[in-house]
């Protein structure tokens, strides 16, 4: 197996995880901000 496969796997896992996590955080903050206000 070519060494390039391992390089691509390492970069792929890293950036898929970090991009997924960062987008998850951004969306979660937007969801919290969109939650209905508590009215008293």
């Amino acid at each position, binding site marked *: 197996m070519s060494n390039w496969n391992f390089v691509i796997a390492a970069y792929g896992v890293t950036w898929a995880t970090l991009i997924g996590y960062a987008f998850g955080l951004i969306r979660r903050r937007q969801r*919290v901000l969109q939650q209905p206000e508590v009215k*008293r």
Partner: protein
Amino acid sequence: MSGGIKRLRVLAITCVVLTQVGAFVTSPPDALMGHLQKIMYVHVPSAWVMMLAFFIVFVYSVLYLWRRNPLHDLAAASAAEVGTVFTALTLIQGSIWGRPTWGVWWVWDPRLTTTAVLILIYAGYLALRSFTDDEERRARWCAAVGVLGFINVWIVFMSVRWWRTLHQPQSSPSTMSSEYLWGLVANSISFAILLAWLIRERYEIAKLEQAKELDFEEAALSGTVQHV
């Protein structure tokens, strides 16, 4: 969204893209490892920022135990979550590098074993946060784990010096050629900025969620809660 986070996000993404592409494209193949050497530009910065994140957990845990400010607990928890993500990445990247280099995906080497223990400690820290609804007790328990868990970060760091390990010692200017060094330093800095952004983003969520929860509890206790 506060301008501070937005600027930090733009800075982090810009720095990471520039340094990752720059180091990947310009680094020549290593005499022994060939192109596998390029994994260093994600593995080593991930490992460094993992330790940095747990140092932040340690600092905010000490601050919490000293001042009892709930915001310090939220900051420690945010850093613990992001640090755990980077620890998982460090282990996976190392395993991918180890297979063609050492011939195995995993070996019970002191550096690898102590890092595996590290992820268990901080996964335990995150799990501990859902064990109790008492915020003060949860913060106190987690601060204790945040302080004691940091001992293992030091053991991970020193493991390649204390024991004869399969894992090579820390990369430094004295052990590396300059054509690889600049990329490693630049990527370590850009990963540190990325870490700062992710922790800040996670901390803002934690603060917002806590504020909403408190607001709802107060309204519920006053018996006047009503959604709009």
